[in-house]
């Protein structure tokens, strides 16, 4: 695997804008499954405007960590969210792009229906209101996918589907955007474009991004911070630093660039 040189600028020379005020804090997060620890002592701060990449081997607890953040599974420890006004809303808006999304090829469901099912009060089978269509268009425009609004979801390519799901996750604009290996099924150039887009969006909307991925080369360029997870946080810091750590190199067989 080719990695960029250690001194490569992390953001193509553009410093990320950070309000520096809002922050999501995970404190002492632990998850046990059948008496066995799946996650232990996770302390993590997610700052708005910052892209935090979580890497680790299969079974290291990456998806479990996301589930804790989404509040889907019981865990010890605490998740706190502090917004720019130093309030603690009980439920920050979390945008989520899941792993392995695929839809039935023949499903009579349009991209607009997907938005309507998520946003609308009126049942989608009775049609979609102008307001919901506008909201969907706005979300899709953020990811350059507005042309896809009337396409059936089963006919989208991997890259198109990711832009649609990212657009959905950005509607409404979230406080935290969480992506779980969003790039499976997307070709190389599609991946580059997707990370560029993500990088641009988090600066424009100033939300925190938590990204689980195996794309080390791309993460080295686009992530602000990298967390190497193996049941607990083994090391974290700027990507260039984390990727130099011997434990990380060992796990990802990065000897070739040593």
């Amino acid at each position: 695997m080719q990695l960029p040189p250690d001194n490569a600028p992390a953001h193509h020379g553009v410093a990320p804008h950070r309000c520096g005020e809002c922050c999501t804090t995970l404190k002492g997060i632990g998850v046990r499954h059948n008496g066995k620890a799946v996650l232990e002592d996770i302390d993590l701060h997610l700052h708005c405007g910052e892209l935090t990449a979580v890497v680790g081997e299969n079974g290291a607890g990456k998806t479990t960590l996301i589930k804790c953040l989404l509040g889907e599974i019981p865990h010890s420890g605490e998740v706190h969210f502090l917004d720019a006004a130093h309030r603690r809303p009980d439920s920050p808006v979390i945008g989520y792009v899941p792993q392995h999304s695929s839809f039935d090829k023949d499903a009579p469901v349009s991209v607009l229906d997907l938005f309507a099912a998520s946003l609308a009060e009126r049942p989608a089978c009775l049609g979609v209101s102008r307001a919901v269509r506008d909201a969907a268009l706005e979300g899709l425009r953020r990811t350059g996918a507005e042309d896809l609004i009337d396409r059936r979801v089963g006919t989208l390519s991997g890259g198109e589907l990711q832009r649609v799901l990212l657009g959905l996750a950005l509607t409404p604009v979230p406080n935290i955007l969480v992506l779980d290996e969003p790039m499976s099924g997307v070709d190389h150039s599609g991946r580059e474009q997707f990370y560029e887009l993500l990088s641009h969006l988090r600066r424009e909307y100033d939300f925190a991004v938590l990204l689980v991925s195996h794309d080390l080369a791309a993460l080295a360029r686009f992530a602000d911070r990298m967390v190497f997870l193996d049941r607990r946080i083994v090391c974290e810091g700027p990507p260039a630093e984390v990727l130099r750590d011997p434990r990380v190199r060992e796990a990802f067989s990065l000897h070739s660039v040593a």
Partner: protein
Amino acid sequence: MIESVFAPWHAAVSALPFEWARYGFMRLALLAVLLVSPLLGALGTVVVANRMAFFSEAIGHAAFTGIALGVLLGLTDPLWSMIGFALLLTLAVTWFRRRGGLSSDTAIGLVMAFTVSLGIVILSRGGDFARYTNFLIGDMLAITGRDVAVLAVLGLVVFALFFFFFNRLLLATLSPAIARSRAKRAGAAELAFACLLAVVVTCALPWIGILVINALLILPAAAARNLARNTAQFFAWTVAVSVLAGIAGLIVSFYASTATGATIVLIAMGFYLLTLVRRAAS
């Protein structure tokens, strides 16, 4: 008394210049078809999208045990014991699925084999099973004004709940992960839908017949799937095919002296084949 509610309907339909419109039982049956077919069609859209066809088939077949329980309990109308048992079965199958010990088609297959056998064993004691064969093929023409009134109330309640739960069900079908992340938990909606389905299938059984009711649930939605590009079209086409096949099947069965339920199914099948041709052409 309840018959007087239908007087305007009878007056309007008998003004039609057709032989069948001269018969009161046909006019009532037409009203029943107009109530039941959109209901089965609408529920069928979710059944097809969620691959629940085997489940709905099992619910229909469980009516054997429902009827048998009614006989054992000495009920004059077995409908209540049929509904009660169908709901019990729905809970059992849902529990099996959630627990995940068995794949759901195996679980449903086991439960169906058990309920059908149990029902037949109880009903066939003393060689009396022939009394119940009308449930197998249904008798649309025996419907009374009271039955139609019950169907109308049922239809209103089911449609209201169906529309209320629809978006949650759709999102959960598309992506359970996104549904959970948006706190649109679908567990309650899915259970509610399964219960609605059980009640509607059971209530429509005496008129449509145990053997063919599932086809009426599945075929219109399967045909519409070949034509529709979005959810609203899917729904509209399904209801249209369902109602058209229902009306045509009722009238054909009148002139051909055939069982109404099965005739409707054959016509719906015809619509399905037409949509297949249309789809192949596009």
